[in-house]
């Protein structure tokens, strides 16, 4: 019984004379290696050449503001629950009167931290978010000398008004439609 | 010039030969022996016997000493495990050393040093001349020596073989 058609039957047959002196096999191998000399190289010379990122690359997170510049996040904690690496922590707070311009909902995240050393960039937080607040973007997490530097708080995660992060490529109509699926409890 | 080289080589040769005996570590004495071989090869070169010098290095320094070093490295000889020197051993050592000294003195006394270097020609050490002498005058001893080596080789192979297998066959 064969599971695949690629399996090879191993045999212990005696070598013929030409196989025994190894030289033909050696020359064959050398011909193979030398043919690689003229092949196209697969190396991407990084600082000069950048490898193109996918439009929906899952990189550094962003906490979106709505069109009036208010934070969308309501600190429901679904992203933290969904996170398989347990990288997200948050502290919720109640919106005080007079802060309506800053926060869209009555509850907001006072502290919102993602540990980038724990994060595996799976994008489950993005899927879980009912408020369209967190997205992964095609930016990468820069390197750092300290571990503390990899815990990203709201100062680094929330987008600023003058530098909005474009997530229209990943927030397509079909994605929005998918999120309305009743299978996801939070959409009920 | 030649004299300076001769004397410095000789000093080095005697010094290294002494160090072979006096060194505590076997590996050190072996390396001194190697140095001694090189100085002797230098003497051959001074006598215009380059072939002899090179063969001396190839055979003694390049092959035999490598084997010696090879086995010494695996022995792991420490000073602690050195043989116990009993009184009897010391007495025997003194007697045999004294006998060697007597023999050496006797040889030196019988040596005629007045004639100086007795080289028939300066070309005697060249490869062609050595070959001619070896294969004309000393043909029989040469071949007997090679047979001796062959016997030694066969013996070594026999010793190296697994005894049970030899018996079975």
């Amino acid at each position, binding site marked *: 019984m064969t599971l695949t058609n690629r399996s090879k039957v191993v045999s212990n047959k005696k070598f013929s004379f030409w196989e025994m002196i190894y030289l033909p096999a050696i020359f064959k191998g050398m011909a193979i290696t030398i043919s690689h000399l003229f092949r196209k190289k697969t*190396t991407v010379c990084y600082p000069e050449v950048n490898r193109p990122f996918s439009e929906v690359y899952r990189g550094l997170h962003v906490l979106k503001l709505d069109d009036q510049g208010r934070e969308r996040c309501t600190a429901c904690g679904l992203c933290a629950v969904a996170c398989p690496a347990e990288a997200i922590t948050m502290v919720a707070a109640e919106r005080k009167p007079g802060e309506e311009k800053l926060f869209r909902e009555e509850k907001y995240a006072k502290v919102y931290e993602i540990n980038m050393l724990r994060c595996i960039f799976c994008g489950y937080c993005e899927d879980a978010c009912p408020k369209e607040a967190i997205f992964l973007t095609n930016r990468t997490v820069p390197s750092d000398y300290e571990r503390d530097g990899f815990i990203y708080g709201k100062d680094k995660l929330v987008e600023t008004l003058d530098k909005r992060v474009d997530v229209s490529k990943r927030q397509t109509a079909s994605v929005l439609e998918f999120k309305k699926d009743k299978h996801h409890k939070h959409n009920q | 010039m030649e004299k300076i080289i001769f004397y410095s080589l000789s000093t080095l040769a005697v010094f290294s030969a002494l160090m072979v005996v006096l060194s505590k570590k076997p590996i050190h004495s072996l390396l001194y022996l190697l140095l001694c071989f090189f100085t002797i090869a230098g003497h051959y070169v001074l006598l215009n016997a380059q*072939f002899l010098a090179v063969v001396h290095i190839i055979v003694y320094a390049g092959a035999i000493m490598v084997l010696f070093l090879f086995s010494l490295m695996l022995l792991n000889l420490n000073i602690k495990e050195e043989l116990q020197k009993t009184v009897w051993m010391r007495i025997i050592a003194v007697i045999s050393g004294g006998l060697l000294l007597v023999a050496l003195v006797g040889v030196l006394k019988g040596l005629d040093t007045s004639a100086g270097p007795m080289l028939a020609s300066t070309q005697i050490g060249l490869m062609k001349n050595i070959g001619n002498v070896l294969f004309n005058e000393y043909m029989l001893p040469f071949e007997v020596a090679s047979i001796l080596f062959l016997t030694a080789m066969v013996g070594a192979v026999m010793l190296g073989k697994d005894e049970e297998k030899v018996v079975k066959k």
Partner: protein
Amino acid sequence: MLYIIYKLVLITIILLVSLGIAMYATLLERKFAGFLQDRFGPDRAGKWGLLQPVADGVKLFFKEEYMPNTADKFLYILGPSLTMLVALLTSAVIPWGPSIFIAGTEFSLQVADLNVGILYVFAIMSMGVYGIMIGGWASNNKYSLMGAVRASSQMISYELAMGLSIASLIMVMGSVRLNDIVDAQQGWNWNVIYQPVGFLIFFICALAETNRHPFDLPECETELIGGYHTEYSSMKLGFYLFSEYINMFVSSAIISTLYFGGYHFPFIDKLGLSPNVAAIVGLMIFFAKIIGFIMLFMWIRWTLPRFRYDQLMRLGWKILLPLALLNLAITGIVILATQ
């Protein structure tokens, strides 16, 4: 006086050229490896990575000097020095090119025209193992010792076959002077045509004696960490690594001298060049041959996997040695028959 000054200058030039070629052989090796594996190899230091050997050298010099406290101090330092010395010694007898004539005086491009040239090369090559053995033993480390033991047994095993292949070459040539051997190979009379089996044996043994792949069992990273140079760091390690490339350069030079006509090239005498121009062209041709062989060494390294130890011994004693003996016998019979 002029003679001595000329020889000193020549020695200095040959030393610098050997070191320079060995330096750039390291870069060539890495570039070649890269290209054979669909990569570019080092290309950051300077244009096409041309400054990479310099960067490596500087790095090795500034690395921490480390010495195991149980090591034999003197021998530990002697090991790499001896390896380097022996690697450089061989180039003294290689005829690099025809003589150059300046104002009627002949300037030979060979440091020493020994009348036992080949045997000298052979003797020095057999010395090469001492540096490795001493260094490996003095490190007082079991991996180093294993590397040293492997190096010595490998060297002894392959020296025999190498000596016999040289012997059959000497029988054909009738001389052991390297100059005579080169001059006998004018035109197409390359020894490789008369001694193809001898060349093959010599080449395989040269690979083994320089500890190149697939015979690099003394350093064998996967089994012995780094073999004899496990405990070495800084420039002492650099000497070991560097002497391998010098050995490779010298071996290539010896192979081209013995089997590929040295500085001779077919049709060179038909071009009607003046002796000096012909000497320079011959020198260039010789170096082209050497670099070709260095490339071949590298090509083999990046193609063949390492031998297993028993395979190495079997190849040396049961295949190469009888083959070399057979070659010797056949060469003798042919010479007798044609006389």
